[in-house]
């Protein structure tokens, strides 16, 4: 009866987890969904407390209290900007728990003498993945927190070394499966796993840490699933599988969003294939983005100012830009068009083009009318404009456009630039705005890019 209750809570918990994750597909429902998942967790814990094997509760209570006392401030006190680090460190703790459970199983079963090969395989798997996740997460935390240097750390023969370590660990694992009662092998494997976690993350750059954390998530999932197999616990298997699959997929998707493959992210430093996304005059970096990535940002923006330029006309993208504007408005945002006096190639070029798409006149704003509003604007969407948003006009007396008043796109909270390349505009000069950390570049023909954005926003 007791067992039945536990099983029922486990089943319910699994369902809650799945539903919770599903709800993340909809920004509006996501929070409610995560509350569901939290309830699932509570159920699983309560269900476990009724398990027959549990005979004493003081240790449990102690652990729960300690964990809560540390966990709550960790979650609440940290600044929003430090979130990725916290996720990494919280992850390390979770993995440590899994590792400890594995070690415990090994220890209590007479140092392996009391387990079958199959169970040992599960146990070993658990310990291996758990351990490397622990150190890997700590390393990721260090890189994100800038305790460790953010740049990839490499040295000669690193590759050979890592591979041999890995081979050694796998060998030990195999030995353990064949002959479980082998404490030496177990402890050695554990140590090597910790080491691998460190070595794996060292050569990856700080900016790629989110991918790493997500991948470690996947490993932690596999460890949990292995625990589930070892102790015959379904909720562990299910959650483990969920995490294993989703973590892997997520890290692939994240790499893709950076226009790189997962292998490139993980082993990029070795092959020297470091993808140079672009470096500006002053060694500054350009942030290239994808329609997918910025679609939600636009959809949920409150105030968007569109800055059309010559490129909009060249791409004949006027109709699509109107569509995008309407879509943002349907999502509750406000869209204005900032018309620079010399945007385009003839006086009134933008007026003609936008009128063709039937964009109402009262959405069009003169430079003087709108220049004060950029500070409150969430996204400045620069469509094929260049010179008219070039801060050099304000700051660089040697520039041919010095003295021309410009649209204050650089004052916006974030800037999204749609153009085909890093090529210059009419005046033939570089534009610092594109290297601004707040700026994301969506490369491609403006019409194509806008069409993609529209499709992405509609698909939300």
């Amino acid at each position, binding site marked *: 009866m007791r067992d039945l209750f536990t099983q029922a809570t486990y089943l319910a918990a699994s369902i809650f987890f799945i539903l919770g994750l599903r709800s993340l597909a909809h920004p509006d429902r996501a929070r409610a969904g995560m509350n569901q998942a939290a309830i699932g967790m509570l159920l699983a814990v309560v269900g476990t407390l009724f398990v027959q094997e549990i005979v004493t509760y003081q240790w449990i209570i102690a652990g729960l209290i300690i964990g809560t006392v540390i966990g709550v401030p960790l979650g609440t006190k940290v600044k929003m900007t430090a979130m990725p680090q916290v996720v990494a460190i919280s992850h390390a703790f979770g993995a440590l728990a899994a590792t400890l459970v594995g070690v415990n199983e090994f220890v209590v079963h007479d140092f392996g003498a009391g387990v079958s090969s199959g169970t040992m395989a599960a146990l070993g798997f658990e310990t291996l993945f758990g351990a490397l996740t622990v150190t890997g997460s700590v390393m990721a935390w260090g890189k994100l927190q800038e305790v460790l240097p953010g740049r990839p750390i490499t040295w000669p023969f690193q590759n050979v070394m890592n591979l041999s370590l890995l081979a050694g660990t796998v060998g030990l694992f195999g030995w353990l499966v064949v002959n479980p009662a082998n404490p030496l092998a177990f402890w050695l494997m554990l140590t090597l796993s910790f080491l691998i976690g460190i070595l794996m993350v060292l050569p990856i750059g700080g900016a790629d840490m989110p991918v790493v954390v997500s991948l470690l998530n996947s490993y932690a999932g596999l460890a949990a699933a292995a625990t589930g197999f070892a102790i015959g616990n379904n909720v562990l298997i299910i959650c483990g599988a969920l995490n294993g699959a989703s973590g892997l997929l997520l890290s692939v998707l994240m790499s893709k969003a950076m226009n790189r493959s997962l292998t490139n992210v993980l082993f990029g430093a070795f092959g020297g294939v470091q993808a140079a996304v672009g470096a500006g005059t002053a060694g500054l970096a350009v942030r290239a983005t994808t329609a997918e990535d910025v679609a939600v940002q636009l959809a949920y923006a409150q105030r968007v100012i569109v800055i059309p330029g010559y490129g909009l006309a060249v791409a004949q993208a006027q109709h699509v830009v109107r569509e995008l504007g309407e879509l943002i408005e349907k999502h509750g945002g406000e869209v204005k068009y900032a*018309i*620079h*006096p*010399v*945007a385009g190639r003839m*006086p*009134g070029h*933008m*007026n*003609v083009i936008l*009128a063709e798409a*039937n964009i109402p*006149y009262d959405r*069009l704003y*003169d430079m003087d009318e709108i220049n004060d509003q950029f500070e409150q604007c969430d996204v400045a969407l620069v469509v094929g404009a260049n010179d008219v948003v070039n801060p050099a006009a304000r700051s660089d007396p040697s520039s041919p456009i010095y003295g021309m008043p410009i649209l204050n796109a650089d004052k916006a909270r974030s800037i999204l630039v749609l153009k085909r390349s890093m090529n210059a505009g009419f005046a033939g000069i570089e534009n610092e705005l594109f290297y601004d950390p707040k700026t994301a570049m969506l490369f491609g023909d403006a019409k194509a890019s806008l069409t993609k954005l529209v499709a992405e926003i509609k698909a939300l």
Partner: protein
Amino acid sequence: MRIGVMKETAPRERRVALSPEAVARLIKAGDTVVVERGAGVAAFYPDEAYAAAGAELGDAEAAGAADLVCKVQCPAMAEVGTLRAGAVLLSLTTGESAAAIQALVNRQVSVLALERVPRITRAQSMDVLSSQATVAGYRAALLGASSLPRFLPMLTTAAGSLTPAKVLVLGAGVAGLQAIATARRLGAVVTGFDVRAAAAEQVLSLGAKFLAPEAIAGDAETAGGYAKELAEEQQQKVIDAVDGAAAASDLVISTAAIPGRAAPRLLLRSTVEKMKPGSVIIDVSAETGGNCELTVPGETIVHGGVTIIGPLNLASTMPQHASQMFARNVQTLVDHLRRDGVLAVDLTDEITGAMCIAHAGALR
């Protein structure tokens, strides 16, 4: 059947009743067409084009001797004699003296008045009022744009921002709607106005705004789709609404008309005096007296900085396409009149009956 095309003699009339293309269609249908030399020149249809289409070229007498004589304007007294006695005349009969009509009757000429084509679906392709009003509306908008000392569209340039012109179109019939569409194309902010309830949706369907004065009791539309005259008090409401809108406008194009009556007065002197210097009024209804109190038909006057133009026969200022459309209407009508290859004036026919104002020596 033998069809004659006479040259227009009225001043300012540059259209011709049949274009070479329409002539070709008629000849294909078995008719013979005689065209008076030079008939199409003012509409940029040279005689050679008619000859190439298969027409015979002749003098006025040759054209007048046909079974069916096509003309744009009603023949003047002097021209009546050119028509064969007993012929059928197909032309407008507006703007011509009753005397000329009587002379035609006396000559046993059957007169089919083009402006009387009934407003039914089937006759749409014979309706010259619609086709010529289309031209008039387009020309009115162009004339307005050309007469304004400012841009119609909005323009943001290095030399400052120019606001779009505000255009008010009074009367949203065929001409009014076309004027709205044309002004909108040029980038103006357009407001339309009409007393018929159905017009509001039509104006909005062109992307323009509609000026809705305080509810006009009932609908001011007759069965034929035309407007009827308004009661005194309603008329006042309309004038008040127009007054405010016109004062805020740069260009007013007025096309309001009531068939068979003088054009309704919508723009008073006081309204004009409220308008900004440089504003323009194009009074398309000048022919029937004008919607504006100050309009002088056929002339351009400036009153306190406001230019008021009262164009006559606007369609004729774009003679080629106006003639082409006119000719297509006439040709469709001829096809309708032709029974087994011969001309038949069947007074029981819904269309022919409505058009015929004189037959067999008597006015109808």
